[in-house]
């Protein structure tokens, strides 16, 4: 205090001698500077509050704001056809311009004007969007590269570019239910679901610092995001065969006023699925809308109650039905394999009318005692029921089980149904007789096709595969998806004999499958007209009882290249599979074999089509 007052006195004395410094001026100046110094002290005190007392809390808040974990996701792989060139599903990363984070006073008009100019929109429209919400507005989706570049250059505050990966299905409904769909980055149907883990690729979290515009600065070293990309899935699907199969089925559904249809084409040597079709089929690009409706109506019903019209289901693997006459060839195989039947073993056709247990059975073709071979050729239920009795439940069920009935084929698709094949102990009475012509057990078309392919493949069964391999984005093979280990389920001799019987169905006059005979090629097959549940499939005003009409066959006979199974659900125009499904088989074979390099030989005989050519 004394120091201060002596300083003051000294200052006064110093000033007194000179240009009239008033004491009041000196005093006031000192007070003013004193107030300034007090202000500086106030600043120091306040800074101490922030930097010392509240330092930790503030730093925590601040760090929470700038530090962030970002999930980096690789781009979803493509789905390619067997050529590796046709892209069935691709991921396009589109970019959207989004407005957010602007305080209320920010002039939206200015932003709207700049953005509109850059994106070629009307400024009024953009402004209207910005004004609909205080905080967030989508300005434009699916920006072009130029537009993105323009916006980047403008670098408008509050206008953000948001990447949005979207899955595009280039071929629409072609193979739609097989390819499947993606929901929120995860495959939820079809191949997209089955191979989701491979397609989706990896995601990884990285620590970033967020700047004021919420742009991330990578804080720590990480693996390159490119290595996170999902693999490309190459299918066995042959694009043209697929196209022919689908269009033939579509035409047939229309002609026959059917509820639906499905078909599958396999390569008998490799069990590769060359084509797989469900009609009607959804377009995965619109699955959200289409499937939403169907799932809503399906909600109360069970999966098996599908009447064949749901475009989102892959009927080849999920539609379960009693196969009917088509399965007579499997009974024949069981009989041959057990040694209880030969192709020439006589069985009685009872002139097309017999009783199986308490049920009367009638055949379209009235046969007497004929070799089993002819029972197949003319598809006689009465004759086959007798053959069934000869084979016996144990042998028949055993062969069916070995051929894959009663369990899923293991094809690389999700949601495959297994059908029902009861244990032998629970077969009673007439079950074996009924089973011999394709009832009392149920299956999917995939099971029928796989079993038939095993027969065509000289009795060796493998797991069918829709997909061939996984490739990295540069086209290098990551993993080959083979057909699984071969399992011999029938002797080569049995297989050859069954093939011979099937050849007669198509190639010999009077066979039920003559309409399936392709021009210029040999073929073998079996028709099947099977009853469907009346309540599920009956349509009001329809006189016909609901049937599923199947043709399962292969071609050419000498060196089979294709196994084709087609089914039409509840056709209303023709009563027999020989009329409905066989022509589809024929068309598919005729169009597909040339694609595989198998040239047709000139027509040797004119195909006679006398008689109804029906087959139960």
């Amino acid at each position, binding site marked *: 205090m004394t120091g201060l007052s002596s300083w003051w006195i000294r200052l006064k004395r110093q000033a007194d001698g000179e*240009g009239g410094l008033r004491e009041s001026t000196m005093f006031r100046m000192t007070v*003013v500077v004193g107030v300034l110094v007090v202000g500086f002290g106030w*600043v120091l005190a*306040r*800074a101490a509050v922030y930097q010392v007392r509240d330092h930790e809390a*503030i730093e925590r808040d601040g760090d929470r704001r700038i530090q962030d974990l970002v999930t980096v996701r690789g781009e979803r792989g493509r789905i390619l056809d067997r050529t590796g060139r046709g892209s069935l599903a691709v991921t396009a990363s589109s970019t959207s311009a989004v407005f957010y984070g602007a305080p209320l006073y920010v002039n939206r008009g200015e932003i709207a004007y700049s953005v509109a100019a850059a994106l070629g929109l009307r400024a009024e429209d953009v402004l209207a969007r910005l004004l609909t919400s205080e905080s967030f507005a989508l300005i434009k989706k699916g920006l072009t590269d130029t537009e993105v570049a323009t916006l980047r250059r403008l670098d408008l505050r509050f206008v953000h570019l948001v990447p949005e990966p979207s899955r595009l299905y280039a071929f629409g409904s072609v193979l739609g239910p097989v390819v499947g769909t993606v929901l929120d980055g995860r495959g939820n149907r079809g191949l997209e679901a089955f191979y989701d883990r491979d397609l989706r690729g990896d995601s990884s979290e990285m620590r970033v610092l967020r700047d004021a515009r919420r742009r991330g600065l990578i804080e720590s070293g990480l693996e390159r995001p490119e290595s996170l990309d999902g693999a490309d899935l190459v299918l066995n699907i042959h694009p043209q065969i697929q196209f022919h199969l689908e269009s033939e089925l579509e035409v047939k559904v229309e002609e026959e006023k059917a509820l639906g249809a499905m078909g599958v084409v396999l390569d008998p040597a490799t069990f590769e699925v060359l084509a797989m079709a469900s009609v009607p089929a959804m377009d995965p690009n619109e699955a959200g809308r289409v499937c939403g409706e169907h799932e809503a109506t399906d909600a109360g019903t069970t999966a098996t109650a599908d009447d064949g019209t749901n475009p989102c289901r892959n009927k080849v693997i999920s539609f379960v039905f009693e196969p009917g006459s088509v399965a007579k060839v499997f009974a024949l195989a069981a009989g041959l394999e057990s040694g209880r039947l030969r192709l020439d073993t006589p069985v009685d056709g009872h002139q097309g009318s017999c009783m199986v247990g308490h049920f009367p059975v009638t055949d379209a073709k009235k046969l007497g005692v004929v070799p089993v071979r002819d029972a197949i050729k003319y598809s006689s239920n009465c004759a086959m029921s007798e053959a069934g009795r000869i084979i016996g439940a144990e042998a028949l069920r055993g062969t069916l089980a070995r051929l894959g009935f009663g369990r899923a084929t293991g094809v690389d698709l999700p949601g495959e149904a297994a059908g029902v094949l009861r244990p032998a102990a629970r077969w009673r009475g007439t079950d074996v007789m009924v089973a011999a012509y394709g009832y009392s057990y149920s299956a999917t078309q995939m099971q029928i096709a796989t079993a038939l392919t095993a027969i065509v493949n000289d009795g060796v069964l493998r797991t069918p595969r829709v997909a061939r391999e996984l490739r990295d984005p540069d086209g290098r093979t990551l993993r080959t998806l083979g057909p699984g280990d071969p399992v011999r389920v029938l002797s080569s001799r049995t297989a050859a004999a069954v093939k011979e019987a099937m050849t007669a169905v198509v190639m010999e006059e009077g066979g039920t499958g003559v309409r399936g005979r392709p021009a210029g090629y040999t073929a073998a097959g079996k028709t099947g007209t099977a009853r469907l549940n009346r309540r599920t499939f009956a349509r009001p005003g329809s006189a016909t009882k609901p049937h599923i009409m199947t043709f399962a066959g292969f071609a050419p006979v000498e060196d089979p290249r294709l196994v084709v199974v087609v089914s039409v659900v509840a056709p209303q125009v023709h009563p027999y599979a020989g009329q409905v499904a066989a022509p589809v088989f024929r068309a598919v074979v005729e169009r597909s074999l040339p694609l595989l390099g198998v040239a047709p030989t000139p027509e040797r005989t004119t195909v006679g089509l006398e008689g109804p050519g029906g087959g139960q």
Partner: protein
Amino acid sequence: MFRRLWASLGFDPADGPREGEMDLALFGAAMTLVALGALFVASASLRSGADPDGPVGPIWMHATHVASGLLALVVALHVPSAALRKGYPVLVVLTLFLMLLVLLVGEEKGGAKRWLAIGPMTLQPSEFLKIVFGLYIAGYLSRRYTLLNDLQTGIVPLGVLYAGFAAMLALQPDIGSVVLLGGLVALMLVVGGTRLTLLGSIVGVMLAAFLVLIIFSPEKLARLIGWWLPEETQAGDGYQVFNARIVIGSGGLFGAGLGQGVHHALGYLPQSDTDFLFAVVAEETGWVGVFVVVLLYAVIAIRGLAIAIRCRDEFSRFAAFAMTILLTLPALVHMAVCLGLLPTKGLVLPFMSYGGSAMVASLATLGILQRLHLEATARPVGPDTGEVA
């Protein structure tokens, strides 16, 4: 050289006071601030890039500003106070002209029209207006000392000139300068001897008018609310206040280290190289750095006061005091704004912030102050060799 120049203009150095000595404490404090400022501007500009389109990076621009400022300091050192006393009306007219020019053909940046383009450079006349206005008040007070308690003859004429300049500043708009000049007028009237009751009522009326203006200007009102409730308005008007708190607070006691401040570098604090530079200082050097900077400004304030008291004539005394206010009051307001103690103003930190005109003006102000010190401490000419010096 300058001496001869001034002599040729009629100011004979022989009858002017001789050179004494520089105030080394004042000079050292200011130069230390300039040096520190360059470091923090560099750190702040690394990210914010004050002039990304310019041909030269902001750091080199800043160096150019400092060099120009030092040149201005040397020039000011050679201008006798007598020349200032006689010449300030010319300067007032010249500044008035430049201010009008700004309003007519000024360059606009960030919504404000404050700059004149001269070739590749830009000039911000309002920075020089502050010096000229300070000199004007000094002249006014020394001439009308006895009238300062009279509203009509003492205060209204000063008020009219202030109102004119303030109106032009408000049109730019540059509210920070309006407030700063108002503060300068008020403080100079205090030291000029105006009765505090009279001054208080004038200031009261002005504050009331200011409040009315604010209330009718939604933008300003929003900014005031943002200052009052930064947490609630952090996404909008409280943005800078809220973020300045985080930037300053995360500095802690010793700071993050030079160039290590993350929060301002990530762009959360706009104008971190100008209006919010103090927050960068606080983040990178902590409370210790804040203490040093505040201490340096306090040294300037106290040395300035000492110079004013030593001055031998009224004009020099008031001029010295005005220059002191112009160097320290903006610093105090700047720091208070950064700390959320005052509403956002837009005042740079003298000697430290980025900005050419402000840097040149600050160093010129320092030069004037040093010149007044030289004159005050010069050995008196003639026989009267008192005990002064």
